[in-house]
């Protein structure tokens, strides 16, 4: 208990004198330091992309999923702590199914994401609970068109043109801001998103990584699907080549 302002971070039920709830902020850091996830909304659909480091050489590729399908028209990527994220996904399943059963229509994305934000928020209200170390990056396509929502662990949920969470999110966000996403098709944006992710990688780490891609668009019949394996592979290769090309170009100029 030394110094002013310390000792207020022991519980989610305690405010600091400045009106902050430290535990919730710490929980947010779990997503901020986790794998980078990007969601963008394009002209005809939306894309989710996650860059995952190879945890061990013995792990089979594509066995540590971070993008999940919630219902036919909606899927989500989970940054941060994966088990916490799965809790959110399974809640999303329930909400989507229950809404459909009750109202006979697919759940509007706004309703779903608000409910998920509420679900996350509940964990920051009781001393006996721990806030979730994850968030829900939702991509969907409903009557109102394509959507990207981010429902965070502190209980807020906003809709975005494009958003990044996890490591290197600031850099990715500024890159996304430069793009005219609203004029691109999902197919065009796929490579651009990969490039954004790759550029923000820590050059010093030689760890292998894998990019998980999923999309929903008119092309997929408004169904949430992971990008076909060969296309995803090709896109990543192309993005890698283009980045190398650009780098050598700028070297020549210098």
């Amino acid at each position, binding site marked *: 208990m030394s110094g002013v302002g310390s000792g207020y971070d022991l519980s989610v039920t305690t405010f600091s004198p400045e009106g902050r709830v430290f535990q919730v902020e710490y929980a947010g850091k779990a997503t901020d330091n986790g794998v980078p996830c990007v969601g963008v909304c394009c002209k005809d659909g939306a894309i989710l992309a996650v860059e995952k480091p190879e945890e061990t050489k013995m792990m089979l590729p594509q066995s540590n999923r971070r993008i999940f399908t919630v219902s*036919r028209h909606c899927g989500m990527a989970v940054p941060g702590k994966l088990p916490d994220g799965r809790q959110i996904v399974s809640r999303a399943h329930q909400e989507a*199914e229950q809404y459909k059963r009750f109202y006979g229509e697919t759940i509007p994305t706004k309703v779903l994401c608000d409910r998920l934000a509420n679900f996350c928020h509940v964990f920051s209200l009781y001393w006996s609970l721990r806030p979730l170390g994850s968030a829900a990056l939702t991509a969907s396509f409903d009557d109102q068109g394509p959507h990207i929502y981010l429902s965070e662990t502190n209980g807020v949920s906003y809709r975005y043109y494009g958003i990044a969470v996890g490591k290197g999110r600031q850099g990715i966000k500024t890159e996304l801001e430069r793009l005219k996403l609203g004029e691109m098709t999902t197919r065009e944006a796929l490579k651009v998103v990969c490039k954004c992710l790759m550029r923000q990688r820590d050059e010093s780490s030689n760890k292998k990584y894998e990019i998980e891609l999923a999309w929903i668009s008119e092309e997929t019949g408004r*169904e949430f699907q992971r990008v076909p394996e060969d296309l995803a592979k090709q896109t990543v290769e192309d993005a890698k080549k283009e980045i190398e090309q650009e780098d050598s170009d700028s070297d020549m100029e210098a």
Partner: protein
Amino acid sequence: MIPHCQLPSHIATGPHVSPFVSSPSHAGRAEDLHVPSSGSSAPFSVAPSADHAEASAGAEPRKHTTYPYVTGNSVLAIKYKDGVLMAADMLGAYGSTKRYKSVQRILRVNDTTIVGASGEISDFQYISNLLDELMTQDFCYDDGCTMTPKEVHAYLCRVMYNRRNKMDPLWNSLVVAGVDKTSGSFVGSVGMLGTSYTDSHVATSFGNHLSRPLFREFQRDDMSLEEAVSLMQEALRVLFYRDKTSINKYVLAKVESSGVAISKPFALDTKWDLKAFVNPSKHAVGSW
């Protein structure tokens, strides 16, 4: 409490009933109820309480669905060389009234499975919702495989049997048909009580008596699509001539390994100018 205003014990004396009474000792739960504390202590008993009557006076036990209202009739399904064929008419009958004439009773479940239903239409709509939910779950697993017709059949068996155990059956006979990549064509049936079987050909309700004899004689698992369609048409025609709750408007569905195709509604050629039909009472002396 006002002494000269003593009320009989079975009349409620709670504060919400009588403005005169406010003694806290009488605010107990038992006195809030319109039930005599014991039968003999009541000075005058006008009528037994409602729930007492239900227990003793032989009220009807609780009943669930005891008969269907809007019903569909026969569904037929046969295997052929490349897949399966299913047919049903489009009637939703209200008793013997041909009430709804555009009811599709064949449902595409996924790329490999279709389900046809006879019996209560609303129960079939409920089953359709169940299957839709099941397929959405299957889609969400995102594991690159979908449910096979055999699995759908087993699922529906459980649903129907579970509901009959609750004494609240779904009033349907279902036919599940489809193609499985590993084990080939599948045709199976589930009854209202959860009874089930699989065969090379299956029919429900009247079809059991009128179509299956034809199938037994003419259906082969290696018959061509054309042969299968003409056999099916013949079976439908036989049914239409003899089954009064059927209409000449059918839907034909086929499943092959390439996917599901359900036809537009169509009618069959029928021939009614047979001699026996001209004077129907001629050979039925004694009737009208």
